[in-house]
């Protein structure tokens, strides 16, 4: 049985990016595609070739810049590579992270008083979208709440096992001496009123039943305290009770645990003929900073490429870090580089970026997605066993 050489295997993994088109997009590692070769699923081979690689995340800076209510030891923005996996599987993980990993979000809002100008239904919608966080081990133990349908015999009730109750009670009033200031022409609301802006930090959790014991752990609260919920003027008031339940993103986007979970393929830049001198500088400018660097033309190069004779010691362009490339194809727009460079991507190298909304860590989310895919397969298998019994 013929076995492809390692170089051939590498070549097959490359997807080509031309000036206006792409080629070799689809994977070919199926039995029957390459005559005589064995491409049967092989777990041992997969164990040997599959790799996970984490990347130093400059993105944690982004997390640090946000004003949030979370310890800095959390990992809310991770970048990692899955290498040696097919797109269909990788995409399943991505889709599950976005739509099927359960989170806690406000679902029912009971409005006792709302004299602000924001309508009840708009206010309720805004509240639903606020990301919540709290002690993760206890949120994990939360059970599902199934919304009762009309006329249901045994409807699920909201209990301390499946429901988190939050309250919001804010009244806007004049500040002491505010009226006089207003008469004098002062317009700054901070000078005139108290509670004129309602923020996510004003939500407070009311533990129910057994949840009293959770209080020793982290409180359930909004991830970002500065989210503006409503604005008010003296005499206006908002009093409401909220029920937060466990749900999934497929049902409503507010339950999605990630702000982005995406992947891209690792870019490759192959320099086919040397690019030297002033051209090297121009070439490097075609890419984001850090992708292309410079080296000196060596005697070995002059032996290999006849056009370099006499140019020993000049600068030449070399690829330093293709991961930073965006594959803008700028270099292909210049006639002098067109035949000297080939762009592509590695079809089985997925650079994942998982940004969490704050309830779960990015690594927990990925592991959850793997677990959930397995559960999906397990359930189908169970049903199939019953069917063929």
């Amino acid at each position: 049985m013929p076995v492809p050489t390692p170089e051939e295997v590498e070549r097959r993994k490359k997807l080509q990016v031309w000036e206006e088109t792409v080629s070799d997009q689809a994977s070919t590692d199926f039995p029957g595609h390459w005559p005589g070769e064995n491409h049967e699923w092989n777990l041992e081979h997969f164990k040997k070739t599959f790799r996970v690689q984490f990347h130093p995340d400059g993105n944690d800076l982004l997390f640090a810049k946000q004003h949030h209510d979370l310890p800095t030891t959390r990992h809310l923005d991770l970048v990692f590579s899955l290498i040696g996996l097919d797109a269909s599987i990788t995409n399943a993980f991505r889709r599950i992270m976005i739509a099927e990993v359960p989170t806690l979000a406000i679902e029912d809002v009971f409005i006792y008083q709302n004299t602000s100008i924001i309508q009840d239904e708009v206010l309720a919608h805004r509240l639903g979208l606020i990301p919540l966080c709290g002690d993760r081990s206890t949120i994990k133990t939360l059970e599902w709440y199934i919304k009762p349908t009309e006329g249901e015999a045994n409807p699920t009730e909201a209990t301390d096992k499946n429901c988190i109750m939050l309250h919001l009670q804010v009244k806007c009033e004049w500040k002491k001496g505010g009226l006089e200031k207003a008469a004098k022409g002062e317009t700054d609301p901070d000078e005139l009123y108290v509670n004129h802006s309602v923020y996510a930090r004003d939500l407070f959790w009311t533990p129910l039943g057994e949840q009293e014991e959770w209080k020793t752990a982290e409180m359930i609260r909004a991830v970002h305290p500065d989210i503006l919920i409503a604005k008010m003027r003296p005499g206006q008031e908002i009093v409401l009770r909220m029920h937060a339940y466990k749900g999934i993103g497929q049902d409503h986007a507010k339950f999605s645990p990630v702000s982005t979970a995406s992947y891209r393929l690792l870019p490759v830049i192959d320099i086919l003929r040397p690019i030297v001198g002033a051209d090297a500088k121009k070439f490097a400018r075609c890419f984001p900073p850090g992708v292309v660097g410079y080296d000196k033309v060596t005697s070995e190069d002059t032996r290999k490429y006849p056009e370099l004779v006499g140019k020993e010691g000049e600068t030449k362009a070399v690829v330093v870090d293709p991961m930073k490339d965006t594959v803008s194809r700028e270099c292909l727009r210049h006639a002098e580089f067109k035949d000297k460079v080939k762009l592509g991507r590695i079809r089985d190298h997925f650079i994942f970026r998982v940004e969490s909304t704050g309830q779960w860590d990015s690594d927990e989310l990925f592991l959850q997605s793997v677990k959930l895919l397995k559960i999906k397969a397990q359930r189908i298998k169970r049903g199939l066993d019953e069917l063929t019994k």
Partner: protein
Amino acid sequence: MPEQVEDEVIVDRGEIDEVADRDRIRVLAGATETAASFQFDGEDHTLGNALRYVIMKNPDVEFCGYSIPHPSENKMNLRIQTYDGVNVYTVLEKGLNDLMDICDVVEEKFTVARDEHFADKMQT
């Protein structure tokens, strides 16, 4: 009379219910030992494409494809045709097993890489 469409999102609520699991799978008309179309309730591209890939990796399989017949129906169809004499059920079962194996390997390798990464970060 069209059959009743179940619109709600099907979520795994942790409990095991074989009967409900069985009712989510149908074998469509015209099935033989070596060629059959299955219909799964509450599944989409997530499982469809992943399962299609692992089943296509099986050399006994002549054809495997999946489709979502209608975007507003929560259903996924999977077609399997095998080479002579191989039972489609065994092929589907092997596909599911292989998919679960992949999940185990990914989970294990991810955990190891993550722990190393976090340990490195703590040191610096």
